[in-house]
Every structure is written in C-alpha cells, then in structure tokens.
C-alpha cells in the first residue's frame, strides 16, 4: 500500500489534518510492504501503536493472516482495543480477566474475523492457548509485534523471563514473517543485545528527550520531610499527575497522608483487584483526582497526554526506570514537572530488590535437584522441602522454566530432560549491572549540571544537550522552605500509622500432618469448592492484633531497632505509645484483663520487661504463661510458612501462672490488694484474676495447666510471619484462656510469605 492510502487511514483515525510523525511511515513500510523486521525505539506518545495498527491493516488487506501482538499490560490492551476499532481493525484479546469472552474469540479466530490478537507474554506459554486458540488460526500469522521489547534484553532494567521465550519463538520463524519490536527505553547496550538475538532487525530510533519537562531533584532524608513537601507543594503543581513510590506500603501510606490533608489522591499497586485498578486509572484520566500514588504497577502503557507532573517519593533503581516513569509527563502540554525526592531508605530498598530479584544459583540448583526426585511438584511441596521464601521459589521456578530446565502444567512443576547448569556468570553480571545503575542514580541525584542532559546521555540519545528548563539550567536549585508545623504533623501521621495483624486461620498443607500429631484438636479439615483446606479451629485462633510500627521505619521503627539491638531495653516513650494505641485507638472488645508475652531464650529480658511495663502502663496484671521447651533456630531465619510452623512445633508449652512474686503480676511489689502509685485502681480486674487463680488451685487442677478464662494481651517485640503469635494464642486457648489479642511493637520490614 502506498503512503497516500496509509495517510488516509491515519486521518480516519485521528482527523483530516493528521500526518505521519517522522519515522512512522518508514516503520510501517518496512514491516507491511517489505515484510522486514524492525526495532522501534521512540519515546512514549510518539505513536508506536499507530505503526503496528496500520501495518496490520495493510497486511490484512493484502490477504495475509492476523497480527499477533505480544504486550505485558492489561490496561494497554483496553486502550488499544478502542483505538484499533477506529481504524476498522477487528482486535481481540484473551487474558485472565475476560475468560467469559474466550469462546467467542475462539470462534471469531476460526472464522477468520480477527485482524489483531493481543496476548501477554505469559499467555504464549499457556497450554490452553497453544492447544485451543492457535490451531484455530487457519492461515499464517501475518506479523508478530513485540511490545516493550527492551524486556528481551538481559541488560534492560526490566528483565522478564517470559521474553526469552518470545526470542526463541522468533528464532523459529522463517525470515518471510515480518516482526516489529517497540520500546520507549533502550540504551545502546540494550539495542545491541536485542540485535544479537533477533536476526535481520533494523533499528529505527528517535529522540527521547521531552522538551516540555522541567526536572528537579530534592534530597530529603526523612520520610516526614517528604510527606510534608508533598502536602505543601502538590497543590501548586499544574494539572493532575502521579506520585511514584517504591513499595506498596509506601503507596498506601502516602495516599493516606495526602487524603488526610484534603488532597484527592488514591493508592495504586499490584495488590489491588483489577477492577479497582481500572477505576483508579480512569479517575486520573478524567482528572477527577489530583494524583495517583503508585508503584511500578502503574506501568508502561498507561498514557495520559496531559499529565502535569510526576513526583517520585523515593529514588528508582536506574536511569532507564526513572526516565520511563518521569517521561510520562509533558507529552501534550507545554510545561510539566518531574520532581525526584530521595530519602534515607532508598538505598536499603534498592539493595533488597537487587538481592531478591535474581534467585541465587544455589537456590535454582536445589530446586532443580528437588524436582528430579518426583514426576511433578507444586510450590507448596517445594516450600515444605526447601527453606526458601515462597517468592524466591516462584522466581527460581520461573527462570528455570524459561531456561528449559523445568516445565509447568497448571500448578505442577516438572524437571525436563534437558541438561541444565546454573548460569552463575550471567546472574552475577546482571547483579553487577544493577548495582551500577543504582550508583548512576545516586550520581544523578547529586548532579549539578543539566539534569535532562544527564538522563539523555545515559540513554545514549545522540541529541543530548542542555535543556534550559531544569532546576540546574535555570539556577532554581535553592530549596523552598516547608512550614515546620507541617513536618511535625507528618511525624505524627507516621507515628499513628499502625498496622493490623490478621489472625491466621489456615495451616500450611505440607505440615498439617505434623501439627495434627502434636495437637489433634488444632486441626480441622474442610472442603472449599473441591479444594481441601486444613484450618485452625475458630475457638483456638487468635483475635485480630495490632502492631505499632514497621521495624526500622520512620516514626517508631527506629526506636524499636535501637531498643532491641543497642540498649537492650525499649524506651519509655515507646511503651507509652503502645499503651496509647491499645487503650485509645485499638480498644479491643472485650478489653484484655491481663498481659502475657512470648518467651524468648535469646532475649528473655527484653520482651519480658516490655510486657511488664506495658501491663503496668495499662493497669493490668502481667504473668508469664508460656515457656520455651527447647531451643529452636531463630524464627526469622525460617523462610516460609511450613518452615516457620515446623520450627515452632513443640517449642512452647503453657505453664502455671506464677502467683508468688508480686512483681510478676502488677509491676510493683506489695500485696495484690494494695497498689502504690497514682494509677487509678483497676483492682476489679486484678482481683478477679487472682480470685480465679485461687479458685483453680483450691478445686485442684487437671494434668495440664489451666488458664483463667479471661481475655489476654499476648505481646512480642517483632512480628514477622505471625506464626509465633498464632501458636502462642493457640496454646493459651487450648489451656482455657479467653480471647487472645496479639500485639507487637514492630512488624519486620520485608516480609516473607
């Protein structure tokens, strides 16, 4: 098809004045007319989709088969479907959210009524897709389009194992089949890597720099400072935009803060249901909210031409990632802002990501070896056999799958017959690269020259030069002050941002038997729609609990860390805050009438002391009810649920509550009936505890210790998986206790499964 005709198509889609942007026609011609292969490197908004839509149409009109578009994003697909319709292209997609449509799609494919089929990279490996949909495609596949093609490269910042499968498929295609690869972010190293993997590919590159974007870097180590900055400056930024955070937790927290300050903001992250994510995107697109506070889950493909700003709450791990995110702003507006706030926690978070991104050769080898012992295994079974976190096992399996060492059918993994050896070199290479990228971003944040030029050079954009708009070019590097009161309010917000401990109700299947042997009453089997579950009976479960903060975090987290590892004692302010939380914020019902704590052989004083003082602050008696029967390994070294439970089995038992030492119960010496100090007497409750205990002794106890049938607060310093508290509560309940409320000072910073 000639250019004129293609332009006519373009105008049908975009209006009578529309013309091709520079490079668009060349790309279309290469793919559709010359049946060649191209890698298109152009910034977001240039119009890559126009290229492959029109190329697909041209091919279809000339009798070729449908175009297969491989793209990683759900949201992208929705927008694209609408855009394709305008061109008269019959586009369909199959993904996990539109299963109801699959049958219709299958039929339309068979009837040759589909011009464009859009799927995710994961879908290509899906048995159903291969056995049901593919055979329905009667004629050839007219063209392959690979979106976000930088994922093909090891060197790219967004390594996705499923893309290696795409490369293998492309290698199996005869040269006559056209292939278009598109990406908005690829430096020379990535481009060369892609070139080496896909034969005969032409590189079509455009300018990456966004002229309307004004860049700023602001270093504010404390989270409270950055929260205050956001509250103060966000209303001053034009239009609507995105605030990026590195973690889901921060996304929630920042959104919560901004909402509290009266700003229309909502969180956006991978833990939201698909429907919620769609809603959130639409709200931003319609300018009904000021900002989405998002993690990278708001990804490539989300396109809002009039996005007024992109603010980063924390520093991303690479220039490529940063540019991809900040480059969303300023597309179709004259002026937009890109602000990078960086803080104290950035390095730690990046290090965590790097450490956990690539399962070590050791993990992969062990997983491969374990799979050789049976025909197939589920992740569950693997987590019982190997002491690694669930997500680590998942990642290892994914990489093994892509490297051909493992194959998967539903949730069962099997070792294939291929020889496989861990590629230690590659893993190390990529890890080194990532560290280098983090260092580059550290330099960017301190850069005193043109910021846009720094980014452009890093991306090997040949047209890199001073932008004249960033804070360094305009000399606006001076920081504007934030009202001190605002910072204090942010500090208070963080301190009040306490968290919930959900009661566990299910045993990991792989250890259910062991648990049942030890505590036959603690195991209930239960069918849920065909799937057997092993649950903790309701009467033995803990109630919903609370945690004061996240370990090491801004707010109280620092104080907890210091208390645990430096001074060996938690400061008074911490105890006060904990008591405040229990008494005034949480207010569990019925209110606990005594306090006990999780025993520890390693730091017996620390938690015991904390428990006692908290009890005193709450005016409740304290008594040890649990004791350790044997040394086990540090619970935090247990990496998944199965290991965690096993480590605790038989590790605790309930003991007689000690009455003798007054110090134990009330935190003061002296007879239980008289209490010193100004604290209002909660004698009623203390007395009833005493009475119940006395009563029990009089009536003679059974073989096992009996606990008072009163609600109790069970405390620990740090909660991670929650299994210690779960089993502690189970034991207390088993021995007659009333409802058990778990409480911990801190939650471990990065949680396992």
């Amino acid at each position, binding site marked *: 098809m000639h250019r004129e005709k293609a332009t006519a198509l373009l105008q049908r889609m975009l209006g009578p004045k529309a013309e091709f942007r520079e490079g668009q026609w060349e790309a279309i011609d290469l793919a559709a007319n010359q049946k060649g292969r191209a890698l298109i490197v152009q910034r977001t908004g240039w119009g890559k989709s126009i290229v492959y839509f029109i190329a697909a149409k041209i091919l279809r009109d000339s009798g070729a088969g449908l175009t297969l578009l491989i793209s990683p994003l759900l949201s992208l697909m929705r927008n694209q479907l609408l855009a394709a319709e305008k061109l008269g292209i019959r586009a369909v997609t199959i993904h996990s959210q539109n299963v109801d449509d699959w049958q219709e799609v299958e039929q339309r494919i068979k009837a040759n009524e589909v011009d464009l089929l859009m799927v995710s990279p994961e879908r290509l490996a899906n048995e159903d897709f291969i056995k049901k949909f*593919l055979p329905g495609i009667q004629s050839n596949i007219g063209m392959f389009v690979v979106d976000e093609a930088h994922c093909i490269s090891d060197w790219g910042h967004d390594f996705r194992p499923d893309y290696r499968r795409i490369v293998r498929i492309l290698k199996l295609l005869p040269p006559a089949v056209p292939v278009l690869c598109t990406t908005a972010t690829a430096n020379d190293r990535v481009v060369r890597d892609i070139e080496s993997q896909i034969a005969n590919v032409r590189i079509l590159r455009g300018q990456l720099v966004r002229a309307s974007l004004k860049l700023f870097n602001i270093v504010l180590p404390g989270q409270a400072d950055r929260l205050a900055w956001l509250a103060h400056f966000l209303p001053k930024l034009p239009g609507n935009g995105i605030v990026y955070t590195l973690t889901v937790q921060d996304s929630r927290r920042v959104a919560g803060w901004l909402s509290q300050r009266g700003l229309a903001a909502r969180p956006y992250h991978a833990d939201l249901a698909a429907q919620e994510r769609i809603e959130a995107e639409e709200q931003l697109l319609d300018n009904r909210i000021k900002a989405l506070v998002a993690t990278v889950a708001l990804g490539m493909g989300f396109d809002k031409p009039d996005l007024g700003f992109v603010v980063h709450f924390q520093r991303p791990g690479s220039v490529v990632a940063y540019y991809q995110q900040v480059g969303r702003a300023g597309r179709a507006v004259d002026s937009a802002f890109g602000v990078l706030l960086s803080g104290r926690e950035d390095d730690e978070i990046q290090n965590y990501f790097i450490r956990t991104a690539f399962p070590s050769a050791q993990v992969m080898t062990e997983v491969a070896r374990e799979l050789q012992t049976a025909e197939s295994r589920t992740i569950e079974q693997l987590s019982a056999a190997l002491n690694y976190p669930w997500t680590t096992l998942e990642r290892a399996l994914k990489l093994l799958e892509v490297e051909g060492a493992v194959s998967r059918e539903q949730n069962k993994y099997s070792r294939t017959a291929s020889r496989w050896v861990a590629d230690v070199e590659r893993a190390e290479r990529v890890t080194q690269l990532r560290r280098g990228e983090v260092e580059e971003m550290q330099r960017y944040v301190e850069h005193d020259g043109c910021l846009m030029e720094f980014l452009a050079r890093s991306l090997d954009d040949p047209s890199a030069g001073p932008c004249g708009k960033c804070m360094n070019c305009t000399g606006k590097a001076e920081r504007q002050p934030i009202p001190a009161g605002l910072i204090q309010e942010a500090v208070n917000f963080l301190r009040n941002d306490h968290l919930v401990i959900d009661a566990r109700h299910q045993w990991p299947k792989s250890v259910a038997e062991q648990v049942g042997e030890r505590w036959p009453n603690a195991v209930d089997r239960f069918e849920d729609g065909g799937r057997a579950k092993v649950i903790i009976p309701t009467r033995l479960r803990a109630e919903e609990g609370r945690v004061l903060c996240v370990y090491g975090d801004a707010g109280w987290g620092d104080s907890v860390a210091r208390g645990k590892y430096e001074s060996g004692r938690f400061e008074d302010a911490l105890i006060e805050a904990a008591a405040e939380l229990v008494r005034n914020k949480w207010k569990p019902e019925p209110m606990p009438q005594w306090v006990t704590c999780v025993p520890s052989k390693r730091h017996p004083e620390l938690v015991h002391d904390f428990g006692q003082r908290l009890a005193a602050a709450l005016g409740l008696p304290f008594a040890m009810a649990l004791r350790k029967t044997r040394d086990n390994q540090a619970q935090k070294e247990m990496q998944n649920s199965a290991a965690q439970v096993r480590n605790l089995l038989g590790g605790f038992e309930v003991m007689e509550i000690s009455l003798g030492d007054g110090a134990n119960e009330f935190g003061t010496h002296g007879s239980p009936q008289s209490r010193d100090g100004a604290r209002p007497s909660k004698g009623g409750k203390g007395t009833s505890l005493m009475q119940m205990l006395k009563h029990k002794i009089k009536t003679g106890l059974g073989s096992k210790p009996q606990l008072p049938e009163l609600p109790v607060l069970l405390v620990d310093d740090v909660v991670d998986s929650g299994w210690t508290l779960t089993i502690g509560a189970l034991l207390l309940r088993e021995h007659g206790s009333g409802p058990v409320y778990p409480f911990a000072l801190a939650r471990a910073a990065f949680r396992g499964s």
Partner: protein
Amino acid sequence: MDVRDFLSDDGQAVLALCSNFALAEDGPSALTLSEWNELETQIENSSLAGPAELPGLGAEKIAKELGIPEGEAERVAALLDRAGRLAMQLEEVFSKGMWVLTRVDSGYPVQLQHTLKHQAPTVLFGSGERSLLNQAAVAVVGSRHIDEAGAAFARAVGKKCVESGLVVVSGGARGTDRLAMDGALSEEGKAMGVLADSLEATIRKPDVQEFVADGRLVLVTPYGPTAGFSVGGAMGRNKVIYGLSEFAVVVSSDVNTGGTWAGAVEALKGQWCPVFVREGSGVPEGNRALLKKGALPIGDEQVGEDANFGEWLRKQQTGTQAKTKKSAAQQQDLFG
C-alpha cells in the same frame, strides 16, 4: 539449547510440510513420505537451492518453479504458511527438553538415512544426546510377554553390548525392549529408545530423566511428541529401530502375528541389517520360523560371561552377507 543447533532453515521447511504436529484444524494434511520424496526430487530439479526458499513464494510461484499443478502448490503454500503457529508450538516442545531432526538436517542419524533411504522418516522428535544416534548400535527386539529364559537373554545381550562398546536400540516397550535397555543402562552403558507414542510424557519420568540428562539415553519418535498409542504406530516405528542399527537380535517372536514378527520379516526382506534370532530348546515358534526366513542363529553361548559379543557379530556379518542374499534369491526362485 538453541534451535539452530539442530534445525536448519531447510529443516524448518520440511517440518512444516511433513509433520502432523500443529496442523490447522480444517487445513490441509501434511505430506506423506512418498509425497515428500516426490517434492524433494522436484526441488532438486528446480532452480531453488533447497526447501528453505519455499516459504513466502506463494502458490503461483511454487507451481511455476517446481512444475507442479496449482492445487498441489496451494497445499504446499498453505502448509508452509503455518510457520508462525508452528514456531509457537515448537517452542513449547523445545522448552520441555525435546528437539526435532528432519531428513535434510546434518544431525539426522547417518545409519538410518543409509539403511532406509527413501523410507527413512522425514521428521524425528527426540530428547537427549543426539550424538548417540550415530554410534554403532545393536537392535534388541522381542515381545512384551517373555519368559524367564528370554528375559535373562535380553538382559544379557544388553550387558554384552556395553562390554563391546555398542549402543542398545529398542522400542521402549514393556518386556524385551526395556529389559535389554535396562541391561545396558544399569551397566553404565548407552541406549536408544524409539518410541511409538508419548515422548513428552516419557521424559517426565524421573528414572528416564536421569539417564537422558546423563547423556546415556536418547529417545526418538517418528511421530509427534504427544502422539498416542496405536498398533500402526507401534509397527511403524520398528523399521526405525532396525534402521539405526548395525545388527539386530530378536529375542522372542510370535509366528505370523505381532509387531516383532512383522518388523523382523520386513527387515529380512529389505536386508536392512543382519538379523539374529535366539535359538535354543525353549524358544517360541516364531523364532524357529524366522530362522527359516533367513535370520541367523544366536544362543546363550554368544552372550556368556567370557564371550566376545561384538567380535562374534562382526564375524557372522562378513560370512553371512553372501548367505543372506543367496537365500533371498533362492526364495524368489521358489515362488516365481
């Protein structure tokens, strides 16, 4: 594993034309062996360098170049058109540890090509060490139901092959096949299995995987990787077993019925390789009948502890090659 290691561009085209794997539901059927043989000749006689030049030409050009009728050319073009889909389904197969070889690929087993010539299967799916396919091998075949003496013999043959540096080839079926193959593998030897079905399922078994990953067991099938069992399939793969081997040993056979009988008779007729048949007091009828058809006798002595198995086989070969040809000629005279 890079697909370029085993599959050439020519091979890809042959695969698209000849394999039943991943065919379109209402599309044309794959080329049969004889249809491919014909097309191969036509390609050789044309100005095209090889099958790799066919994809993308279109039916009209293909008809012209090869001098074939439009209808046939359309079928060829349609089969080649499925390249994209085929690529995706192939990738799935490869990612599970399997590979594919076609008759035009350099890795295709030499002995097989040499022995069966135009009857050699166009496409072989497989898994494991490909170089084994070109090592000197002995086929060991027999029925699934086998008595003590037969079983002991099968295992012994396997063991003796290892001692002589020969690879055992068999069908992977229960009974004789597995006994012979296990006989070799358990003595640190090597084996080839020619499967009639279920290649994909077979390589998932841990014990099979162990030998395959070790490089001592290679599995092939002339059918698709997920083909199901059929009697025809079981029979059809027998010729591949003989075709891969320098010698064949039949442990026990029925008369005029069963895969072992049919395979042995075909092998004798085609003179694919010297066929030895177990003799002795308790052997089944079929064994005796095969001797009359020209098979050579082999007994417990040849697989005894001190026997030099490989040497003995070779001696028989030179001596009897003339014999075998003569007896075949004699039979023809008898029956006109």
